[in-house]
């Protein structure tokens, strides 16, 4: 178990291969700390650099620039084994010719640990993973979900494991088995208090597993924080769009000193205090507000904009209403019992506390 720190990490495959002219960086300016025992997710679309970052943390790749520290010790030059990193891959990696016991015992056997101690430890791990009944089964014969458990078992069997890194481990798992494995991963992390870093492009997996989520885009970290933080307070427009369902509503607007916020041919008002704060950064912004916070009413209300209801999607638990204001489609949630239909006129208001303002993609307020 270790606290992992990345300091000014940059990596370019171009430079690695010798092309030093105008190199392209897979990851840029990475600075992040993961406390000992945290459940972390690296989330982002494919090509964002999360796999590269994982390789740098694991030791498979030495970064072009920057340092990797484990509990304050510089491990940048050390290999994966030397850092005591365990890894679970996208497709299950098990030693087919050995049974489950042999697989889990393998790292300890290679370390020369006494066979009695190995036996005890393997049984402990098997019990946590709920695979004790499979110990005698040849690993090659297991289904993918169980193989991943064995992979994880090999990862946690050593007492000095600093962190367990998981690279999209649910990729080849059957949807029915995914829930169980997802739960098992989280349970192991919580019970054993390992630092576990989970790489994925799936926000469902990331937000369910992690306490700390690092969202990446084109090689840079957009934001790192708890799922709730990312959801409520996205630092970038990308995160506002990517996290949460539906994504954040975005509207280009113009702010005036009297608190008027003009957008798409209509307007509403914010406090003069907020307006003054905003005007320090300019007067054109992109306003973001999560659908859950947009207040929808079939009746005219104060400081609200009107629009025509374009679409009502009823999930049974609540309705997702798309209202066209001017030429913009805005989404909001309405309670199940609200009677609202397509074609109705609706009034939307935006509570000041929940509105975020962005400039050039980044949050200003």
């Amino acid at each position, binding site marked *: 178990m270790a606290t992992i720190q990345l300091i000014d990490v940059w990596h370019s495959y171009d430079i690695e291969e010798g092309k030093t002219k105008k190199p392209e960086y897979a990851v840029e300016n990475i600075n992040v700390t993961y406390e000992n025992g945290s459940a972390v997710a690296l989330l982002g679309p494919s090509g964002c650099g999360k796999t590269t970052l994982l390789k740098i943390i694991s030791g*498979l790749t030495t970064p072009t620039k920057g340092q990797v520290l484990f509990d304050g010790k510089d491990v940048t030059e050390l*290999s*994966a*084994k030397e850092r005591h*990193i*365990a*890894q679970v*891959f*996208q*497709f299950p*990696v098990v*030693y*087919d*010719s*050995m*049974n*489950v*016991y*042999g697989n889990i*015992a*393998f*790292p300890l056997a*290679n*370390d020369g640990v006494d066979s009695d101690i190995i036996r005890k430890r393997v049984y402990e791990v098997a019990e946590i993973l709920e695979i004790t009944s499979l*110990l*005698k089964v*040849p690993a*090659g*014969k297991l289904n993918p979900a169980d193989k991943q458990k064995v*992979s994880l078992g*090999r990862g946690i069997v050593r007492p000095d494991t600093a962190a367990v890194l998981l690279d999209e481990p649910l990729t080849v798992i059957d949807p029915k088995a995914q829930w169980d494995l997802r739960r098992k991963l989280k349970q192991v992390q919580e019970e054993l208090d390992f630092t576990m870093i989970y790489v994925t492009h799936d926000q469902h997996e990331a937000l369910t597993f992690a306490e700390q989520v690092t969202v990446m885009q084109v090689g840079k970290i957009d934001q790192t924080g708890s799922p709730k933080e990312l959801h409520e307070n996205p630092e970038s427009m990308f995160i506002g769009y990517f996290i949460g369902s539906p994504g954040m509503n975005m509207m280009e607007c113009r702010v005036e000193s009297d608190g008027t916020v003009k957008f798409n041919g209509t307007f509403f008002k914010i406090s003069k205090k907020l307006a003054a704060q905003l005007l320090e950064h300019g007067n054109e912004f992109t306003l973001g507000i999560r659908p859950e916070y947009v207040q929808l009413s079939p009746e005219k209300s104060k400081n609200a904009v009107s629009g025509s209801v374009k679409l009502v999607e009823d999930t049974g638990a609540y309705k997702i209403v798309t209202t066209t204001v001017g030429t913009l489609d805005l989404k909001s949630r309405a309670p199940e019992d609200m009677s609202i239909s397509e074609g109705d006129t609706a009034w939307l208001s935006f509570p000041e506390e929940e509105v975020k303002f962005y400039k050039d993609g980044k949050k200003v307020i």
Partner: protein
Amino acid sequence: MKYDNRAWLFLLPALAVMALSAFIPLMTVVNYSLHYIFSGSIPEFVGFANFVDVMRDSAFRGALGRQLMFSVSILAVEIPLGIAIALSMPKKGIGVAISLVLLGIPLLIPYNVVGIVWRLFSQSDIGLIAEVMSWVGYEYNVSLDPVDAPVTLFLLDVWHWTPLVALLSYAGYLAIPDAFYRAAEIDGASRWKVFRFVILPKLRPVLVLAFLLRFMDSFKIYAEPLLLTGGGPGNTTTFMSLFVARKAQSYELGYAGAASLIYLFIVIVMSYIFFQLLNKLGSGESQKA
């Protein structure tokens, strides 16, 4: 339902070719095996008498014995050697193309040309082997020495066919995802353990294939011994197919027919046994649990 039946028509040409080149000749052989046939005379139905004669004949058993020795020894060398070559071949870069070409050359040469080239090599007067052997004081004579002949044939086969094992193993080796080596590295496995627990199990399907191919192929070796030594000296390099062919050429068709069927039967049974054994061998090797 209409569509299903029409599909069979597409198979007719292929079926016709197969019938002509394989099925009908096979039936002819079966027919021969059940009769006494001598040139000119009328074939006489004798049931299984030919089969009994064949199995009692010490010449047949001798040829079979030599064949088994040969096949076993080449398998024992070609498989490990092929794997070793595959593992030492480069995985990337220009070296790959060069190695593949070098390995490919012995495989591309027609069998009879191989035989002729090695006959030249092994000529006691002008051959390369005789010359090199004389440097270490050994008098090499492939046509007279009963040890030199089979050994030369053995070397010929190893040269000719190890590349096949190597290429198959190489393909299998390249297919092993990197993740397995990473995992083994993290698990602290030594190079030997990586070979034993990652490479070998992953190569198993390919090796079973290579093993069976080499076994079946070596069991019917014909052109090379014929061209190298004509089966001699004596019968030291007369293996099964040559033996049966000679019997057929001397018009002992009944005997030859029976011998070939027994020969076929042996190959099928042995292949089946090996196949089952090799598949079982890989999976389920367990640690104490």
